């Protein structure tokens, strides 16, 4: 349903060469599929999401590549046409519920606005739909709360409102960009539960963007791991978690502190830090931090290989040779 | 990553700000041009006797209300005196009054503001509430009242304008000091046992200077503006003293006979105020990059 091919995002920098935080990303999302894009900050995942919506910041643009939604190419659309697509066919829920709602308008007004942007409905009916939606996302007493302002809600409740706004026009694809990072763990769990239910009920395609591998593994069917602006590993969620193929995925999983860990064992952090888009290492972007690196890794960028059912970009995948 | 004692690092960080501010400022084209223009203005007005082409009292009865020409770049006035010369000499008064008044306002304001900051609690609150109230009123209005009370003259202008702008400076002095009082190096100094308010003031004051200078530049601009306004209605600098405002007034009364007479002093005032505003704005932006 949603197909991304070789997406490259470029940011112009004052008086210097432009940088490319997204360097050729390809994936697809089918109806009802839950896709996870996992990576650290700086991997380019959020910019990918923004570019799908056509909401890149002023200095950024899609340099090359295509995005197809239901067969229709999004990259060349005018602002007017894009406005139609946003909310109606593809929607995003963002990370910061505290500031993502207009503080001056009631919550109900904002949901109604989202509904009316895509459908010609009367005020009365829109309001009823809004209340029903708010109930659906688990907001208590929606008939009363619909006239409250955002500052009267907690973070978790605001995020529910955001989700309500995102799905109200029945989009095909929902992008959730770190939807629960700003929330405490219990709220996180509840929101993800609610999201799961909605996704199943409405057969939405979901792209969950997160740095939390565990979250992605629990929620998603398939996972793409991003590093240095490229997808370095793709596969079924459970499989990537249990048997990672790319050294980066492996290192990520190793660094998770499970409760059942041996307390004396040091935390296996990945040494170094993720590369900035203007300081990308030659060859494979991960090689300076990779435990398995060889000379070849610094010279040549790896091409995608199929290894044990995953697609990975590595010269020397974990667990031995190509399948 | 290890972290060294905050006190050591912070001390090194504290004094470096003043000169780097200056350098960063001059890199901005608008600021550099403004600084240059204001320096030129100061030089030509203070050195009016050197730069003026004629004597300010040299009347030329053959050439009354002459339009601008090569001989008289700004034209002449009702007595045939060269207007450019009069503008330069007038500038001397205007700038003198402005600088003196601003200095007064800064000193008084800093004293007021620092006291309010150091004496937290209701004394500080009252001091600031009064300052707020005074700031809310238009300066021209209050100026007129004070002129009514104390008469108009060059000296009274300096004092009145100084007094008028003290509340604004007091406010900013207080808020800057409050910020410094919460900074690490101050807490470190106190915890190390730095004695006496005076020693601490020697640490804190230099760090508040950049902000105060920026505000001072803006105040200077407004003082020139208000002095010109008051002199224009005849309630500021009194003849025979000349300032840009009095020149404008004379130009205004002779409006129908010479357009250049009021226009040139007006343009000079505009230039001075504009340039000082730009300089002040840029100073503020340089010191707080989040604002630019």
């Amino acid at each position, binding site marked *: 349903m949603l197909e991304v091919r070789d997406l490259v995002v470029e940011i112009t920098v004052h008086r210097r060469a432009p940088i490319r935080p997204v360097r050729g990303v390809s994936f697809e999302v089918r109806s009802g599929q839950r896709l996870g894009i996992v990576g650290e900050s700086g991997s380019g995942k959020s910019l990918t999401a923004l570019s799908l919506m056509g909401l890149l910041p002023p200095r950024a643009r899609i340099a090359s590549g295509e995005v197809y939604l239901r067969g229709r190419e999004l990259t060349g659309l005018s602002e*007017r046409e894009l406005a*139609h697509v946003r909310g109606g066919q593809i929607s995003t829920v963002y990370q910061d519920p505290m500031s993502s*709602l207009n503080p001056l308008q009631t919550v109900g007004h904002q949901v109604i606005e989202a509904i009316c942007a895509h459908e010609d409905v009367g005020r009365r009916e829109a309001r009823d739909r809004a209340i029903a939606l708010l109930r659906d996302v688990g907001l208590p007493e929606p008939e009363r709360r619909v006239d409250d302002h955002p500052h009267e809600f907690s973070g978790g409740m605001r995020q529910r409102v955001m989700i309500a706004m995102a799905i109200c026009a029945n989009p095909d694809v929902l992008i959730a960009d770190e939807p629960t990072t700003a929330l405490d763990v219990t709220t996180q769990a509840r929101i993800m539960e609610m999201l799961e239910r909605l996704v199943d009920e409405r057969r939405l395609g979901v792209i969950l963007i997160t740095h939390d591998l565990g979250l992605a593994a629990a929620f998603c069917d398939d996972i793409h791991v991003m590093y240095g602006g490229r997808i370095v590993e793709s596969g079924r969620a459970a499989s990537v978690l249990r048997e990672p193929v790319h050294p980066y995925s492996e290192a990520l999983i190793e660094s998770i502190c499970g409760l059942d860990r041996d307390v004396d064992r040091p935390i296996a952090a990945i040494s170094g830090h993720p590369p900035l888009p203007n300081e990308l290492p030659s060859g494979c972007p991960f090689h300076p931090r990779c435990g398995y690196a060889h000379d070849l890794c610094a010279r040549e960028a790896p091409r995608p290989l199929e290894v044990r059912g995953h697609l990975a970009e590595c010269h020397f995948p974990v667990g031995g040779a190509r399948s | 990553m290890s972290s060294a004692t905050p006190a050591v690092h912070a001390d090194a960080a504290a004094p470096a700000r003043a000169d780097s501010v200056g350098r960063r400022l001059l890199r901005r084209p608008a600021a550099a041009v403004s600084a240059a223009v204001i320096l030129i203005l100061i030089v030509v007005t203070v050195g009016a006797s050197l730069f003026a082409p004629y004597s300010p009292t040299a009347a030329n009865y053959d050439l009354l209300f002459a339009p601008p020409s090569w001989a008289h770049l700004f034209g002449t006035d009702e007595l045939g005196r060269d207007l450019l010369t009069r503008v330069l000499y007038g500038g001397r008064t205007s700038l003198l009054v402005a600088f003196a008044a601003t200095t007064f306002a800064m000193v008084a304001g800093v004293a007021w503001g620092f006291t309010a900051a150091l004496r937290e609690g209701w004394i500080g609150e009252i001091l600031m509430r009064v300052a707020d109230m005074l700031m809310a009123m238009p300066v*021209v209005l209050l100026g007129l009242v004070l002129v009514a009370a104390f008469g108009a003259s060059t000296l009274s202008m300096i004092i009145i304008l100084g007094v008028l702008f003290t509340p604004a400076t007091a406010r900013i002095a207080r808020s800057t000091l409050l910020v410094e009082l919460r900074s690490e190096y101050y807490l470190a100094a106190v915890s190390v046992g730095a004695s006496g308010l005076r020693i601490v003031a020697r640490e804190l004051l230099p760090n508040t200077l950049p902000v105060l200078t920026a505000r001072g530049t803006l105040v200077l601009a407004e003082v020139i503006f208000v002095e010109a306004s008051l002199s*224009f209605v005849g309630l500021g600098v009194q003849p025979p003293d000349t300032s840009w405002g009095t020149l404008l007034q004379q130009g205004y009364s002779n409006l129908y006979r010479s357009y250049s007479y009021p226009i040139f002093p007006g343009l000079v005032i505009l230039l001075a105020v*504009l340039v000082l505003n730009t300089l002040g704005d840029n100073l503020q932006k340089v010191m707080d990059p989040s604002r630019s």
Partner: protein
Amino acid sequence: MLRYIARRLVTSVALVFLGSVLVFLLMRVIPGDPTITKLGGTIKDVNPEALAAIRHQLGLDKSIPEQYVSWIADMAHGDLGNSYFSQFSVTTLAGQRLGATLELALMAMVIGLLIAVPASVAGAIWPNRVLNAVLSGFAAIGIAIPTFVIGILLIIGIGVELEWLPTQGYVSFQRDPFGSLQSTLLPAITLGIGVAASTMRILRPSLVDVESASFVRTAKGKGLLRRQVVMRHELPNASIPAITAAGIIVAHLVGGAVIVEYVFARPGLGTLLVDSVFQRDYGVLQALVLLAVIVFIVTSLVVDIALGFLDPRLRTKAVR
């Protein structure tokens, strides 16, 4: 909401009283005795009986607190006191002039906002470099240029050279509405430019700030068109700092009105004020100044209430 308004009302009344005390004291502290000036002589040749009579007439023989109380009491009854020099009461004098000043101020506000708001919004919708440079330049010059300079330029340009509009005097609105507007237009534009510039200086950066706010991204993400995002989400939020600064803008307006009335020879409250300063007519002066203080406090109150309507966060007690 009501509690918020009530609180602000109480503070305002308190401030008015505080202001009146300050004004009163200031007048009494002034050196020089107005009675002597009124009698037109120096201390030596003044008849002590005449002096005492004048003092009694002006109420200056009572003690200071008594004077204050009677002044305030009179004010509350609408009696603004009497001019020390002419035989008119301040109320009469001010009443004659009020129309001119009010018309000027209102027109200037309207013109100022009509320039500032569309210009700022245009700058936000079309991020064209040239346009924004022009707008910033206009705003910078607009606040740097003294009102009387604009006035003079307009007089020369439009009044004298082109002869499109009258350059002085005032026609009462009741008598001749169209003529009144004509005579007010030039002064109102003069003042309005300053208002526009001050407003733009706050509104434009505010719109830029709002542009990068999260909820704007959300609004766009909902599928709203650019103009809907700007009008419904950006502008209301960006207006808040501008409305908060309205008090300062009104202050500039009043100060500027005094000058503009002088330049255009308009018989308004501003010229009355200037004249009273020249004549040391303290009766008029103290009443006018107190009126000005009240105007500011009321403006500030209105601004706060307006903000309360606009921004629901202000109505709740800060529980941060």
